[in-house]
């Protein structure tokens, strides 16, 4: 793989556009294959030939259309959302350790969800179905807005302030969640812990479409900002001298990333690792040009989560594993392996 990327870099040194197109095409194929595999595999196995020829039984058809397809689409959307917001955050903080949790979205979402589960009691109807998702979205966005507001108190929208505010707000939200956990009864506690482990099991068409309508515009905004993010890599001062309005850029990036992660967390709970590691992997393999990094993170994040979710819903069928556990369990060691390998390559 690394020799391949090196060859790609050498071959297309003078034609970055072409290199970009080839890499994105390859990742697109990966996503397509992941999707095709995912459609056929599951607790119920469906035959790809039968799906394509439309000769499924009515039962299999309803499983395909009302359960599996929305789920795969959701996995791809959430994976892409986490991938691009991770890439944007790492670019903004100019730190490979930055991930969406830093701007308080997951903490705020978890707190809001805990409030609904523990304090609101049983809710039914529309709110019962989407209540947790709406709460997670509102809570996530609210806490990231608070962090952004605090960062602007210094008058300069300082990244350091934002980072510190993020840590403080996270501490507060986790304390709040902890307090609610303490108040919760047996069943509420279970509901809460299942939510924090993250799952794509509740994929219905409506939330999938809502999530898509939020994530796709965000993706385009971030791709448009990729040149500016490249400039920011030079350092804030240098970027300003190069004519970049860094305040506006930072605000735009934080807002889009919060929207993306907010939408993802709302539909799937907390799925770790993807936001941190997908952009990292892309950077290790293909370099840190944001023009490539952002769309590639979207495609790779989507493929990775589709595959992970396929495994999550097959290994322990007829029940399923929370996919958040799986992404961290498999991804962590893989990432370590890659790090070790990379550092060995360098003298």
């Amino acid at each position, binding site marked *: 793989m690394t020799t391949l990327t090196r060859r790609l870099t050498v071959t297309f040194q003078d034609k970055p556009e072409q290199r970009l197109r080839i890499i994105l095409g390859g990742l697109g194929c990966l996503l397509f294959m992941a999707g095709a595999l995912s459609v056929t595999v599951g607790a119920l196995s469906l035959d790809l030939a039968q799906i394509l020829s439309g000769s499924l039984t009515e039962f299999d058809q309803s499983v395909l259309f009302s*359960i599996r397809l929305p789920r795969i689409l959701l996995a791809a959307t959430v994976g892409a959302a986490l991938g691009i917001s991770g890439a944007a955050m790492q670019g903004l903080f100019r730190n490979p350790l930055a991930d969406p949790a830093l701007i308080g979205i997951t903490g705020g979402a978890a707190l809001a969800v805990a409030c609904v589960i523990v304090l609101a009691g049983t809710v039914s109807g529309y709110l019962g179905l989407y209540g947790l998702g709406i709460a997670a979205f509102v809570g996530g966005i609210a806490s990231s807005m608070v962090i952004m507001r605090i960062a602007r108190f210094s008058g300069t929208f300082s990244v350091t302030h934002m980072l510190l505010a993020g840590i403080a707000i996270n501490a507060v939200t986790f304390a709040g969640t902890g307090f609610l956990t303490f108040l919760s009864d047996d069943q509420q506690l279970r509901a809460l812990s299942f939510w924090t482990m993250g799952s794509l*099991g509740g994929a219905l068409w409506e939330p999938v479409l809502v999530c898509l309508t939020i994530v796709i515009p965000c993706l385009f905004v971030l791709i448009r900002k990729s040149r500016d993010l490249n400039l920011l890599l030079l350092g804030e001062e240098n970027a300003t001298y190069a004519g970049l309005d860094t305040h506006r850029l930072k605000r735009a990036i934080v807002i889009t990333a919060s929207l993306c992660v907010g939408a993802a967390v709302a539909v799937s709970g907390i799925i770790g690792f993807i936001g941190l590691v997908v952009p990292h992997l892309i950077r290790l393999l293909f370099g840190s040009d944001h023009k490539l990094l952002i769309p590639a993170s979207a495609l790779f994040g989507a493929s990775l989560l589709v595959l992970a979710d396929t495994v999550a819903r097959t290994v322990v069928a*007829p*029940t399923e594993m929370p996919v958040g556990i799986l992404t961290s369990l498999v991804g962590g060691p893989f990432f370590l392996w890659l790090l070790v390998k990379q550092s060995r390559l360098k003298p």
Partner: protein
Amino acid sequence: MRTLLAAFLLVLCPVLSVADTPGQINSPDRANSPNRIVSVGGALTEIIYALGEQGRLVGSDTTSYFPPEAEALPKVGYQRALSAEGILSLRPDTILMNDEAGPPPVLKQLAASKVRLVSLPSATDLDGIRRNIRAVGALLDVPGTADALLQTFDKTVADLTAVTARQSDRPRVLYMMNHGSGSPMVAGRDTSADSIITLAGGQNVVDGYTGYKPLTPEAAAAHAPDVILVSTRTLEQAGGMESLLRIPGLNLTPAARNRRIIPMDDLLLLGFGPRTPAAALDLNKRLHSQ
């Protein structure tokens, strides 16, 4: 990278072959009544077994662990964290569940698959159990067996009432359970623990709050229960009788002084299924064993 991909595919292979095993389809012997049932909820599964209709079960959730055979059924996960595809892969024609089943989006997915969903309220008293037995009997089209089961049920209830009517004292009981770390939780009013204690002729020492609250050492000492009732699992988690009695506050109670700790299985004690009258009778005996 390539070796990694190969390893990944290798891991996936057994998964694929497991998923490919076709489900056996029973020939329907009764028209319109369900023959392939997934039961979600320990008490409902118990009712199906008590009616002798377990042959129609194709799966159950993890709370269904009585009778022991029920543990061998394919498990569709915890009742509040079901997976739609997992359940449907068992090719059920009916999903019988209590009102705790969820999460709601999964129920909506199941409804979209056109499999029959039957939801029964969780029983919190004897009448609730009777209603559920009747409802399951009607669903399975065995009202006669359900009536017979109800007769045995009512007879045990009559025995229980006769026993409790003769007893003048009502032992003061504290029900405690431990989920994970932190203080054990103590049952207040409007809990199934409170109902079964009352049913068994005891008296819940806690009447100041509803639901479960963490135990504070001083409150435990102040309530001064004669007996401490715990779930078997809580006792195991605590590390046995000795360590349980060392919990601050508990060690000051009359129950600890006289070493009166009664461990009982959660599903038996709090399940509110067909075994509840027998469980209450058993609890009554153990409450009055001194």
